[in-house]
């Protein structure tokens, strides 16, 4: 940051924000946060102070033009912020400029906001604050009729704050998600730094995003980043493009749980890689997950997120293949988390998955299936989720095994794959193939980053002992497209000779 610019930034402590802002918000300056109603402006303003208190021992002043301090205390207590306790400790101070229940004042002649400024200065000095949130500017325009005066005075307040050495966050309303920065031309006086919060309705789903529009004189990540609000943590921004491709990579391999598959993959899965298993329903994806979980050695811990089947079903199926999940769970070597995808939004799923991983500290993670999660999100949101989860898993140096259900029985690809195939390190395809009126299963390793792998399409069978990979299919072509063509032996011979002659 030192060689970046002369504009110093302070970390906000809001999860993800410091990443997308490359270090926080500009120090001793005012940053405008603009958003439509319900876009979590007040949450951000409160959290800016709360994070300062909790993480950096920085005290904060909250100037409220809209909600009364009582309302804010109450609303944020349910979100896990005990504002009242901080007030008692002298770390948080309200400047209450919310509308009073008495009649609106009469206006007679010119005035300024000198009293407000004096109160703010007094509050900052009183608790030695370095952070200030002002929420929200639109409300003060409703309280006073002289717009030009209010604008001039807000500008004066912003420059006074700069002199006092505090870093400020001001919120302002906007009417449209995509349009003017704010009502009342507020951007005129705090134009240095603008952050926009959005709450867009897309395909009947709400999607919250944050965008840093500009930081004058300093760098930041561009574009919109999704975020979510969860109890006790508040806003959590999911930095996607901010995720750098700088995961360490190892040559250390782990077994997939199937000896033959390990051979096909050139010796097993890499430890910090993500593998996608794609196949139609019933091709053996869950079996592969089960074998992968069961083959972990005693020092390893496995975590399974199941979004399609219940615990009982999973455990019963595993027993059918000779794997006792119950005993493994008792020994704390495995943890199974079953949930309906619909219980929460995808952003919340991502956060809870990350939390469980950080808590349980597994060495292997499986998600069965990713395509079930696709149901609860838009295409864009899903893609962001997959980027988020893959990069997280790789950073933790875990092996991740994701399954994806293809919509058609024979051949074909799913939407899931087109989204995520470039993000995963290895892809294993499980397919049905019809051979002379009989359904057979086949498997192929489509991609194996950083390693040689078997390119054959191999037949496999499932019995009570699990998966058995057999010989490659010969004399058949077009399995993966779902239109197998049987080649006669003389045809094969001809093809072989064709290349010999050349």
């Amino acid at each position, binding site marked *: 940051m030192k060689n970046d610019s002369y504009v110093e930034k302070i970390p906000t402590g809001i999860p993800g924000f410091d990443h997308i802002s490359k270090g926080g918000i500009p120090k001793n300056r005012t940053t405008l946060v603009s958003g439509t109603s319900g876009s979590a402006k007040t949450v951000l303003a409160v959290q800016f102070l709360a994070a300062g208190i909790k993480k950096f021992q920085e005290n904060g002043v909250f100037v409220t033009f809209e909600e009364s301090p009582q309302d804010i205390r109450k609303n944020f207590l349910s979100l896990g912020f005990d504002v009242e306790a901080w007030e008692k400790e002298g770390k948080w101070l309200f400047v209450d400029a919310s509308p009073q229940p*008495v*009649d609106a*004042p009469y*206006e007679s*002649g010119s005035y300024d*906001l000198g*009293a407000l400024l*004096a109160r703010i200065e007094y509050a900052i000095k009183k608790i030695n604050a370095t952070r200030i949130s002002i929420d929200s500017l639109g409300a003060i325009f409703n309280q006073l009729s002289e717009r030009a005066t209010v604008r001039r005075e807000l500008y004066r307040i912003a420059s006074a704050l700069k002199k006092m050495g505090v870093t400020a966050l001001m919120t302002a309303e906007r009417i449209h998600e995509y349009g003017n920065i704010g009502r009342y031309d507020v951007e005129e006086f705090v134009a240095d730094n603008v952050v926009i919060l959005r709450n867009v309705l897309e395909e009947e789903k709400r999607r919250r995003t944050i965008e840093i529009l500009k930081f004058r004189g300093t760098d930041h990540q561009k574009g919109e980043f999704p975020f979510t609000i969860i109890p006790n943590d508040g806003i959590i921004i999911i930095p996607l493009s901010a995720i750098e491709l700088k995961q360490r990579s190892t040559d250390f391999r782990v077994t997939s749980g199937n000896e033959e598959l390990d051979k096909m993959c050139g010796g097993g899965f890499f430890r910090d890689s993500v593998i996608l298993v794609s196949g139609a329903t019933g091709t053996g994806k869950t079996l592969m997950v089960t074998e992968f979980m069961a083959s972990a050695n005693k020092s390893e811990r496995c975590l399974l997120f199941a979004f399609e089947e219940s615990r009982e079903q999973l455990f019963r199926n595993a027993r059918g293949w000779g794997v006792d999940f119950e005993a493994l769970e008792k020994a704390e070597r495995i943890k199974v988390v079953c949930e309906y995808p619909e219980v929460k939004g995808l952003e919340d799923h991502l956060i809870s998955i990350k939390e469980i991983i950080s808590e349980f500290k597994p060495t292997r993670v499986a998600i069965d299936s990713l395509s079930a999660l696709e149901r609860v999100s838009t295409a864009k949101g899903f893609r962001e989720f997959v980027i988020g989860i893959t990069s997280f898993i790789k950073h933790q140096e875990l092996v991740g095994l994701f399954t994806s259900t293809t919509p058609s029985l024979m051949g074909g690809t799913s939407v899931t794959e087109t989204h995520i195939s470039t993000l995963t390190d290895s892809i294993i395809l499980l397919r049905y193939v019809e051979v002379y009126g009989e359904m057979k299963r086949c498997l192929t390793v489509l991609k194996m980053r950083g390693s040689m792998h078997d390119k054959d399409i191999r037949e496999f069978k499932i019995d009570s002992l699990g998966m058995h990979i057999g010989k490659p299919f010969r004399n058949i072509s077009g399995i993966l497209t779902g239109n197998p063509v049987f080649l006669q032996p003389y045809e094969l011979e001809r093809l072989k000779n064709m290349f010999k002659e050349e």
Partner: protein
Amino acid sequence: MNKYLLKLYITGRTPRSERAISNLRHICEEELNNQYEMLIIDVLERPQLAEEEKILATPTLIKQLPPPLRRIIGDLSDKEKVLLGLDLMPFSITQNPSSGDPTR
């Protein structure tokens, strides 16, 4: 007649503050027949009072007594508005400008 308790909040001795004070003095002398008490509070010296009273703009005149409590902001140059805020009927002035009859 009720006794008036008026509080005028100002920020420092700026021209606007002085204007407000002199305007208020004039109105009081003309309309209130010395039946008033006037307090001038400088918020730069006593910000805590401004906080308690939730003063936003200056100058702010608060009519503490008689009830109801009313606020008038500005330099009080608009006399009619001030009289309205003090519950001194403005039409009595238009009818008889010289008399300051605070009829209610």
